[in-house]
């Protein structure tokens, strides 16, 4: 029983992270009908931005409240900007071209980021006063992600039957908070209405006076920022960061989005939670080597039974 509770907690913590990344796939798919294969790699870049900020702050400051806030803000804003540029210069010129063109471009950006970040390139710029600015790509090997949330056991039940760590709770709350903000944005604001209209039919949305290009750009920025936040939570959990993490986490989150029904916002959240729980229970009760196989097996199972995903309506696809 205690073990079950522990797995439930771990699964939910992992699931909310998948959900945040999955939301990005789903929102971009919603407005562009594009599977943004670079999404996970944008997340990875965000994690490095957070990493650089943490290193820059130093050991003391990085784990203070404002330090953590600054790390998240830097990663999320930096990623929003990256998302903006990718949309503006890579996807927008292909908007009226066949869908496959944009898809291949997305895969290209994904590879450019995940392999580009493995290069050993860098330079140092001397600054006045003896300082120097050094800019470098991180290189291929994974790095330890600083403990910006010093691990403390917050709750221990029984003889260490259940242990809940502070970072698990904080991570869960941050993820939940981001999802609630998003939920509010999408379903309660003028921008969210415009976004849902664009996602149904951007040509008709333009007839309402909605500047569809701007809505699409903002959607990219929003989903990239969410990915950066999720990526940091993942790096805190995993205590490491590497250029290939985007491919792995991105793929898992994509699976979550498809399980929930791609294009469906609540579906992405449920898909992420379900995937996180399924993986955790497989690792807990079977073997960790089965984790990925079960994740993809579960995807196939869902698609066999409900081809549109748990929340998708295949028949309701627009005509």
């Amino acid at each position: 029983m205690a073990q079950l509770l522990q797995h439930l907690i771990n699964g939910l913590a992992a699931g909310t992270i998948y959900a945040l990344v999955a939301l990005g796939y789903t929102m971009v798919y919603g407005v562009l009908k594009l599977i943004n294969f670079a999404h996970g790699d944008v997340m990875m870049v965000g994690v490095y931005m957070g990493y650089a900020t943490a290193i820059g702050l130093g050991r003391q400051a990085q784990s203070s409240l404002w330090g953590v806030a600054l790390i998240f803000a830097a990663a999320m804003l930096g990623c929003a900007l990256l998302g903006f540029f990718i949309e503006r210069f890579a996807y927008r010129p292909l908007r009226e071209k066949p869908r496959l063109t944009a898809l291949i471009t997305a895969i290209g950006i994904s590879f450019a980021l995940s392999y580009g970040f493995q290069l050993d390139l860098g330079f140092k710029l001397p600054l006045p006063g003896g300082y120097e600015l050094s800019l470098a790509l991180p290189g291929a090997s994974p790095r330890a992600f600083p403990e910006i949330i010093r691990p403390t056991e917050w709750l221990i039940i029984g003889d260490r039957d259940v242990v809940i760590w502070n970072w698990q709770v904080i991570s869960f709350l941050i993820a939940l908070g981001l999802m609630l903000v998003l939920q509010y944005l999408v379903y309660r604001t003028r921008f969210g209405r415009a976004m849902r209209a664009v996602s149904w039919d951007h040509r008709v949305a333009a007839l309402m006076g909605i500047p569809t290009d701007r809505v699409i750009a903002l959607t990219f920025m929003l989903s990239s920022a969410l990915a950066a936040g999720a990526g940091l939570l993942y790096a805190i959990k995993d205590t490491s960061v590497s250029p290939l993490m985007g491919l792995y986490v991105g793929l898992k989150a994509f699976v979550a989005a498809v399980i929930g029904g791609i294009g469906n916002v609540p579906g992405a959240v449920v898909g992420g939670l379900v995937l996180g729980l399924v993986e955790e229970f497989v690792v807990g009760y079977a073997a960790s080597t089965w984790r990925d196989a079960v994740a993809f097996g579960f995807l196939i199972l869902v698609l066999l039974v409900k081809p549109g995903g748990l929340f998708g309506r295949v028949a309701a696809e627009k005509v």
Partner: protein
Amino acid sequence: MSEQVKTLGERRSFPGLLTVEGLKVQYGAIQALRGVSLQVGQGEVVALIGANGAGKTSTLRAVSGMLKPSAGRITLGSRDITGLKAHQMVPLGMAHAPEGRGIFPNLTVQENLELGAYLRSDTAEIQVDMEKNFTLFPVLKERRRQMAGTLSGGEQQMLAIARALLSRPKLLLLDEPSLGLAPQVTETIFRTLRDVNAAGVSVLLVEQNAHLALNAAHYGYVLETGEVVMAGPGKALLDSAEVRRAYLGE
């Protein structure tokens, strides 16, 4: 190409609003419009009739900026609006209820209506217009919390028109409002159209149902394979032997 247009009768004079000159539209190799010219005056209802594939929808799409014409000039009031994007036309007083209604079925009726007023910030006035719309179409008020996709065809058409009116347009472009509707529903919609026009909104109405459209219109144009072939007051067109033979099945 105006020299080839057969014009019947006298046009009642209205102050100018929309002028389309030599409009051409191309879909890849297909030339859908080969130089269409037409006018809509302030307060006028103008019908554009023609067979399936004649280019009616393409004309409306080019006028509202949904697609870019390959040649021609479009002016609204005194302003050249050729090549503007659709979302830039809305604040100039253009509203387009597109073919197939184009409502957002994934949004509630209320949200659809609010999107019609997307660019307006006069909250109190929007509320007034919203109520006006509900008077025109009481069924929308009853269903305002429902997903728009659950409405019947006629209700969706009413929603499309109501939504278009919420931008407070000078010119309303309507593409086949009677398509697929029962006769009584069509009648309701056309009755409302008269009220809307009486309130000062100009209408460019596209219809395959020529009888219905020409009866409702001050003036009409007949489109054939991307060209205007005939023009005249609604009644005059209705009385013409050619129109009766080609479009009214007589």
